[in-house]
């Protein structure tokens, strides 16, 4: 039963107040894009066993979307941040580096 901090309203949300929105920072591919890119956008997911950047909506609260960095095995939450960015904040990445060195390599692989 997760608890995530909503950066929009400042509330620590119970999982039952949230809805999950899947992997974060996907690039939308529209008309004219390559089949590969479009398939990736809709279906290919990192699905990592480890650090995952994901989207959430505080649906039973302020209604706003936000991002979270969470480990899918330990469920440790490294932080939450606004939805209106295309990449995780550097400070957050550094914090994850400190705890899980090498996680980026796993990510790239």
């Amino acid at each position: 039963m997760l608890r995530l901090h909503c950066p929009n309203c400042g509330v620590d949300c119970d999982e039952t107040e949230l809805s999950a929105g899947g992997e974060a920072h996907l690039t939308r591919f529209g008309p004219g894009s390559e089949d590969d890119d479009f398939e990736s956008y809709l279906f290919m997911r990192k699905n990592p066993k480890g650090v995952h950047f994901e989207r959430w909506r505080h649906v039973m609260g302020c209604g706003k979307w936000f991002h979270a960095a969470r480990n899918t095995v330990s469920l440790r939450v490294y932080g939450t941040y606004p939805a209106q960015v295309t990449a995780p904040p550097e400070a957050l990445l550094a914090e994850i580096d400190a705890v899980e060195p090498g996680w980026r390599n796993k990510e790239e692989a």
Partner: protein
Amino acid sequence: MTRYSAFAIAKQAMRHHMGWDRAWASPSPKSHYDVVIVGAGGHGLATAYWLGRKHGITNVAVIEKGWLGGGNTGRNTTIIRSNYLQDPSAALYEKSRSLFETMSQDLNYNVMFSPRGVLMLAQTEHEKRGYLRTAHANMLQGVETRWIGPQEVKRICPIMNIDGPRYPVLGGLWQERAGTARHDAVAWGYARACSDMGMDIIEQCEVTGVTRDGDKVTGLSTTRGEIGCGKLGIVVAGHSGRLAEMAGFRLPVESVPLQALVSEPIKPCMDIVVMANTVHGYMSQSDKGEMVIGGGTDSFNGYHQRGSFHHIEETVRALVETFPMISRLKMLRHWGGIVDMTGDRSPILSKTPVGNCFINCGWGTGGFKATPGSGWAFAELMAKGHSPLTAEFGMERFREGRFIDESVAAGVAH
């Protein structure tokens, strides 16, 4: 291999059962096999079994990170049915269901297939239309199902409250030869049969890398050494993405925990399996007497075999409404398994972009019932490079927009 029979038991009883053999051997890995299957769950073992039994390929290893049958094979609610809507699904699951009919005899291992009937309840007009559609499709697909009215529902499942008031039962889709089987026994039975054909089942052996020669797979690195292979089959529900990544391709798959629970055992009160999709719950009673209840999946990625409690709550709430008597039963235990969900919630049985490498994954919440059919079809695909049963389940379907979507009729789960 000692044949199992009542006579064998009686004979052994005289010597305090000291003479039974191991059910399956536990060898060290050889350096090379014609085929290596990663994952000694039901599907992996069934694949190996049919490779040997039907295609004569017995130089096979099935390697397993943990203990055999320890993944979703041993964590599901044991339901077997084939009343699927779409042709490719109906074909695959019906093949599977028909193989369950003779599995105990085929394997000389009682897997307790119990065709007690599966009933999918309709509690809204929309759901009713969906099941009528499935009934029509099944008729043409050679799957025996029929629509039954509320009074017949009550007759075959007296503990159900069919009068609502919230969601009165409008009837249901009834598959009489669907049912349950003993999940662990399926894995054990296959393991014993594979071992008997000379295949190696290697437990406690984790894959750490996939060896390739150009764009072809040649072997595996494992915690028990290098193992070469002619062909590689990846059958590792919940961990498919990891293995695919090692082999060098990507999968349209996400992993989530799926939950289930059982009550304390009580005397028989329900002979069939009931699935109530409007209220999201399904239930059967095991031979031990426990009410076996399926819950929902978490909506976020996770590899923790726990899941969130509110799904348990939703399921139990729904079933108390449908079966009021369970309110005074007690929940004995609840647990979770990791399931792979694909973009259309149907499985992938496919060649991959990597030569000699095949993938069987994405069964979502419905894998157990497919075990023998999945193995049968995947073995054919691996042996021959093509199987009519797997033809529509290729991974290229997502790119083409050619989905096998079972949710369209009535939000069917499991």
